[in-house]
């Protein structure tokens, strides 16, 4: 498969999972803000704010490089290393988030594993019971349950969990 094909499929999977998560928290009236771990070029942030216009979205980013149209205001930006900003968010927001999306993985499998061990427990302390977690990495958190992936998303390509 060409890189163009795999990139299209990855983005379609990402969009389908975000839409499924947004639908769940909307239909089930799960209150709380949205957490976006990794702003990147701001595409999924843009998608989330379009899909969930009434929710606050807090973004975690080491160094902002997105198009200015896709950057949140300072009050909604946790700027810095994720191992420092997640505890900051915990102090400020508590366990209140309805949806968290993490897209911090790279091509480095060892680094991704370290990241997953950091992010999983941190999100368990930030996402409220009934909230939904969408992640590019598999997260092994006690008590979370797997949610079914939307049609067309290959298992393992993206991950959907329910916090309990």
């Amino acid at each position, binding site marked *: 498969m060409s*890189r*163009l094909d795999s990139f*299209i499929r990855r983005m379609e999977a990402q969009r389908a999972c975000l839409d499924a998560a947004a639908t769940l928290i909307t239909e089930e009236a799960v209150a709380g803000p949205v957490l976006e771990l990794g702003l990147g070029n701001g*595409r*999924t942030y843009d*998608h989330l704010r379009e899909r969930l216009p009434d929710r606050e979205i807090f973004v975690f980013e080491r160094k902002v490089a997105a198009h200015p149209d896709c950057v949140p205001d300072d009050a909604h930006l946790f700027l810095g290393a994720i191992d420092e900003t997640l505890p900051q968010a915990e102090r400020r927001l508590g366990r209140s988030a309805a949806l968290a999306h993490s897209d911090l993985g790279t091509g480095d499998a060892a680094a991704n594993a370290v990241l997953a061990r950091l992010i999983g427990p941190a999100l368990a302390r930030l996402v409220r019971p009934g909230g939904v977690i969408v992640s590019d990495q598999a997260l092994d958190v006690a008590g979370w349950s797997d949610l079914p992936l939307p049609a067309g998303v290959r298992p393992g390509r993206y991950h959907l969990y329910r916090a309990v």
Partner: protein
Amino acid sequence: MADASLTTQRDPLAAWRKLDAVSRMIARLTSQKAALTAAAERLVGIDGMVLEVGLGKGRTWDLLGHLLPERRRLALDREVHAPAALRPAADQLMLGELSELLPRLARDMPGQVALAHVDCGGEGRAADAAFDAWLPAALHPLLAAGAVVAQDRPRGHPRWRALPAPAGMTVFPYYLYRKDAT
């Protein structure tokens, strides 16, 4: 009285601009794939190389390698932004300004390109009328008879015929042309 039709010229990207950033990207890349796949299928019996005008992230460069593995490929760009795995080999890449590269290629390898893909717009860049007017004439001498040109903008040439939009095109339009066979 002012002619209303002059002031209400339709923006071909109007529907696309209304999408969110993820959906815009998916639409653009899906159209690229549809256009390049259709272009590759039209090259039967036409000898020549593949010219990528604008390498960018290297994704369509990679697709062209999958679609046309037996053809020589050459990429042109100002600088390389593609990740290492998608970077063309040294003899497949020419860096510089198109205003210098295309005339040089027209001199060194006239009529040797069977498929040219022109993707110089990206997502954000505003239409550059001067570039759009200049490019077809600069590209034309490189093309083999019957060559196919796939573009992110409608840049026509008197000796090119517009081909119908291929199946699979999204709200992001792509444009296919064929150079006259004679």
